[in-house]
């Protein structure tokens, strides 16, 4: 019982950590630098 809970905790931490790493990568890549422009981009011609 205890072992399975520890296992699940570790598993959820690993899953979360995966998402967290993707998030860090996105911030570093400048994905959040300008949240205004992209929503207007589809209206541009080119």
């Amino acid at each position, binding site marked *: 019982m205890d072992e399975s809970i520890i296992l699940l905790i570790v598993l959820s*931490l690993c899953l979360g950590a995966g998402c967290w790493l993707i998030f860090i990568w996105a911030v570093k890549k400048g994905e959040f630098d300008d949240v205004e422009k992209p929503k207007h981009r589809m209206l541009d011609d080119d």
Partner: protein
Amino acid sequence: MTTPAVHSCHHCGISFRWDPVETDPAEGDRLEFCCRGCLGAFRLICSAGLGKFYQRDVRSMPTVTPDSSGQFNDEELVRHVTPDGEFCRLDILVGGISCPSCIWLLERMISRIDGVADVSISYAGGIASVVFDPARSAPSEIFATISSLGFSPRPFSPALSDLEVRRERNDLLLRFGTALFLTMQLMAYSYSLYAGYFQGMGSGIKSVLQYASCIVATPVVFYCGWPFLEGAWQSLRSRRPGMDLLIAVGALTAWIYSTWALFSLQETYYESAAMIVTFVLLGRLLELSVRRTAMSGIESLYAAVVSRATLVEKSGHRDVPADDIRPGDLLLVRQGERFPVDCLVLDGETEIDQSLVTGESLPVLASPGSDVRAGCINVASPVTVQALRAVGHSYLMRVAALVRMAQAGKPSLQRLSDRIAGWFVPAVILLAILVCIGHYYVAGQGIGRALMVSLSVVLIACPCAMGLAVPAAVLAACSRSASLGIILRSGDVIERLAAVQCAFFDKTGTVTMGQPRVTGFSSAGCLSERDVLAAAASVEHQAAHPLARAIVGYAAEQGELPGGCMNFTITPGRGVSGQTEGGHQVLCGSRSFLEGRGVSLAGSREVGALQDTEVLVAIDGCLAGCFLLSDQIRPGSSSLVATLVSKGIELRLVSGDAQPVVDRIAFTIGIAAALGDMTPDQKLALVHDAQNRGRRVLMVGDGVNDAPALAAAYVSCSLTGSSDIALENADVIIAGDDVTRLATAYRISRSTMIVIRQNLAWAFLYNIVGIPLAVSGYLTPVYAAIAMTASSLLVSLNSLRLMRISHHG
């Protein structure tokens, strides 16, 4: 007429024609300066033993690197110092400002430096404008003070500002993202623990969950919450309690208590510690977005500032940062590029797009000798230009500086809430301690319970909302105004404009265009209308007089473009004469001018209307035609008057023109009271008189003759086309020709005051309800954290409503 000699300032290098300020003969060589400020800066440099600054090639000077961690020396900083009256001004971008309390602290500490006359920090950009006496304090001292408080000062330049904001935002985003991820994990354990608390749980599992909580909560407090811990430490060291201290105390108390509880097998509250940090980070992130949105008005100006430029040297072209351009440098501006600084075209002919600077949508021709302002776009072909001013002194940057100063100014309401925040924090911490003692000793509860209650008190009392109430509204209002073409000189203008009771309007240039237009043209009969127009336009084209421009403009509308003209002479105030390409001798001017040249005016009829000006044309000594010109009423004047009258504001038209003319204009636009034949003194007396009767006066004017009245009035307003002295004295500056923007400015100021009152009322109400609840122990720390954040959010969002005010309606 002799033109005054051109002088060149020894410090800033600008060329000027007025009398120079000179060094004392005792100081050695006689040197010329454009103003006392530059002389002051020069003395500062020399007294610091850095006189060799003036011999060095400034372009080879090292640029200040952002990583020099507060180690700045005067030699580098002096480049960023600009003169301001008798003092010097230094703009500093301060990194690490996270809340209104930081600004309060910085302003307090900087103003304590000996020699600092004024300091104001813009909440929007985190930019400190420090005015100081160069004889008593050095820029490095100011920088050292800022960095000793834990902030990172940088000399201000636009490109850096953008980077700084982005860096701060990314840092905050990383901390918040991490906190969110860990807190979500933590909540899973916490809910299990809550369930276990009520339904029973094996001690083994409970320990596992508690240890897991500890593992995820610790980085939240010490990594994500680091900015608060750092801020708290700084505020302790400088003995200036701020918001960060309150948050740090809350989070640390919860964490330390929980860690103690973990080892003594009691209930832990790690989720409280983590949630405080997460929620406050979210608040900060949103606050930063508000600041960014509010800054957008200024950013559109900064965006036009180019960061690199092509320098022309003997050895060829070189790419340099725009900051390094000195007056006198030769630059190449290619097709499609923006002009980096105000400059003079030396070689090449092109068309430039001035839309950003003047609002003029059609490109205009620029040829050698033309002045071009920074921010214009070179549309047609490459030109070589000479820089007239450094980047920081360009017209564009002056306007941007004006807007920024407006944002830094605070209404008196703001000073009130600043004062409150100053004693509020120590009071809250004291209350929390008392509550803890009360619950532990007097009510006899467990130490854990007592600590939790005092924790709630600390959290609920965070004066975020109170600190945000005024600046957020002022920021949103200034930014919205700027994007509607209304520049507010300072934040308190909003408060004053909203309280205006009567308004005095100058006539010429304010309710009228201030420029004559041709209202009628008739030919005397001996020549065709087109021939007369063409001849008059050719001669008048050479003159710069407003009447001449109006005639040329009228001829162009009729399809007659000016031709060549020889032997042009001008008799000031009377008329002009010249010879057309066809060999005809043309005279244009007043009745007496033509009569004086022997032209017979028999048969021409006198015009009676007072507001009209007459220009007669004679060709080869014979009267050929007559133009009638008059000043046109500005479109929108009537609707502005109607709007202001409907708000219950008493209006008057005052003018130096003759009474009948003023009466007619007043009647046309709907102003009931009109006063003509007013001298500048009488206008001033009129304003004083009204104000002595307790009326709050808005003065709208544009000319030199309005300046005293503008300066004396409770609020004053000018249009961008006005004389410099009028602009200097105006609190509200309206860009472009649309006077109805004044009505919009009035509406914005009224709405802003309403929003400010709502915000302050909410902040006080929240504390009045929240603190007793927390003291009595009904509010757990988690709810306190949520309530505090929600309250800050509400105030920010309420202020953002001001951004939706439109120009019409």
